[in-house]
């Protein structure tokens, strides 16, 4: 859960510039070109952050997407206050900033003509953290897929559980996985797309449970944080540790697919579903 504050800071720095500086190779790219290239670096193929709605636009056939469960937003049920203020102020500011009401957008629509239910996490919203609202939306979307016999696709982008909700956020791991379990029992396909970063409690719940786990290139996928592990084992870690490529090598990711190819990849995979 330590990553997202840092990442947000970096993003802010470049936000209003005409140029975008690639976080990986350092290339400067025209903001327009960056956007046209789907926030992917033309030099090194670094896959930058992308908002939920941008993602949805990329994936769905024009006009086919219908948002669901967008009436859900966070709640500060612990009256949580840290050094920087209250959780309530924080998420309200995030709602204002992002225009979305939780860290995930859910809905259904058609991809290359194939009807699917989707949940797309948005890293801008509190670092894509898994709060009660997030879990509720991801579960409700799973239930919608279950009840309508539709494939379910979840795009993850998250720093992990949202600690300002205490154990309530921890329980979202179990809650969302219960939704996956129901899909499993009904043999409804569930595809997980792990994007940069997918860490902590999100990696250890629905994000890792896809019938097929797909990832964008170079995405950080991790349970424990790199620094915590370095402290634990007292030595340096391999360079590619916890990247999508590393996880594929170790058997946890099926395919690494470029952002521009994801729509066709996903519908191709789903075309094999025969129930």
């Amino acid at each position: 859960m330590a990553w997202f504050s840092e990442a947000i800071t970096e993003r802010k720095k470049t936000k209003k510039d005409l140029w975008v500086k690639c976080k990986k190779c350092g290339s400067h790219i025209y903001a327009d070109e960056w956007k046209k290239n789907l926030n992917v670096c033309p030099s090194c193929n670094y896959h930058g952050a992308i908002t939920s709605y941008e993602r949805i636009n990329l994936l769905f056939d024009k006009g086919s997407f219908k948002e669901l469960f967008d009436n859900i937003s966070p709640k500060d049920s612990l009256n949580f206050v840290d050094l920087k203020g209250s959780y309530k102020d924080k998420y309200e500011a995030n709602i204002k900033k992002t225009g979305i009401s939780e860290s995930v957008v859910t809905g259904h629509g058609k991809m290359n003509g194939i009807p699917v239910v989707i949940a797309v996490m948005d890293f801008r919203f509190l670092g894509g953290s898994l709060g009660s609202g997030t879990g509720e939306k991801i579960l409700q979307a799973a239930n919608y897929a279950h009840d309508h016999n539709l494939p379910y696709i979840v795009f993850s982008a998250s720093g992990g559980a949202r600690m300002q909700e205490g154990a309530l956020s921890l329980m979202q791991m179990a809650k969302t996985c219960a939704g996956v379990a129901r899909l499993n029992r009904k043999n409804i396909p569930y595809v997980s797309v792990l994007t940069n970063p997918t860490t902590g409690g999100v990696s250890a719940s629905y994000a890792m449970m896809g019938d097929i786990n797909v990832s964008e290139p170079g995405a950080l996928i991790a349970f424990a944080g790199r620094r915590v592990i370095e402290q634990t084992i007292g030595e340096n870690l391999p360079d590619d540790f916890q990247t999508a490529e590393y996880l594929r090598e170790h058997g946890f990711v099926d395919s690494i697919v470029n952002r521009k190819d994801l729509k066709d990849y996903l519908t191709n995979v789903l075309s094999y579903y025969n129930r």
Partner: protein
Amino acid sequence: MGQEIDNIVMDEPKVDEMKKKNKKENASWNIVQVSRHPKRPILQDYISHIVENFVELHGDRYFSDDKAMIGGFAEIGGQKIMLIGHNKGKKTNENIERNFGMAKPDGYRKALRLMKLAQRFNIPVVTFIDTPGAFPGLEAEERGQAEAIAKNLTEMASIEVPIVCVVIGEGGSGGALGIGVGDRILMLSNAIYSVISPEGCASILWRDAAFAPDAAEAMNITAKPLLKHGIIDEIIEEPGEGAHTDVKTVAESIKTSILKNIKPLQKLSIDELIQSRFEKFSAMGKFTVNK
């Protein structure tokens, strides 16, 4: 903005009041101390007090026998169960062998194997939760710590026998939840259950691990608020200064509570059991529903 979907009223101190408080001595932090007390009873203590016939089973059938997670057939007050739990040690050599109760993927996979065995044998599962967290090490990541926990969360939702979970010490994050999806969640009064360690939370949100007591209080990691939030179902009271002052009594209370909680679950059909477990976890979480 929005309508609140639940009616739980928190009597949390106001922000101003909190700032005035001496952060180092709040009630939550005291409980954290008790839950981590060097003499805090561990699973093996409870086994020797309340289990009549423990047939320990070993191995995940993939890679190893993780000694941080133990399990096997057991009898408690005549009730046959599959007992599974984090295995802390007391002496240094025990703690090294058992990795301080921090399981690796192999431990979670072993736990799942035993749950499926319980399903085959048609006996309830009882899990004992007591871990600082899942092991955060290179080999654990490499072998899929995230996958192993995620799979348990998913599969436990569908295990076709009753599952009762007891938080007996530290309920550390995903490593605790990895054996914590059950029909009834019981918790000792000086145990904790948290999404992240107070130190971890403090070092991120307060930028200083020394604020752990504040984080502990803010995150509601103790039994009472967890009961209020519907995360646990029952508090098992510890005697005196804590479980370590009277292991026998607390062991008996645990036994009584387990037996009492298993009974009604055994009357449910498999479909009712799975459905009610699903509904239980579906109901967890507090959020705002906007009009």
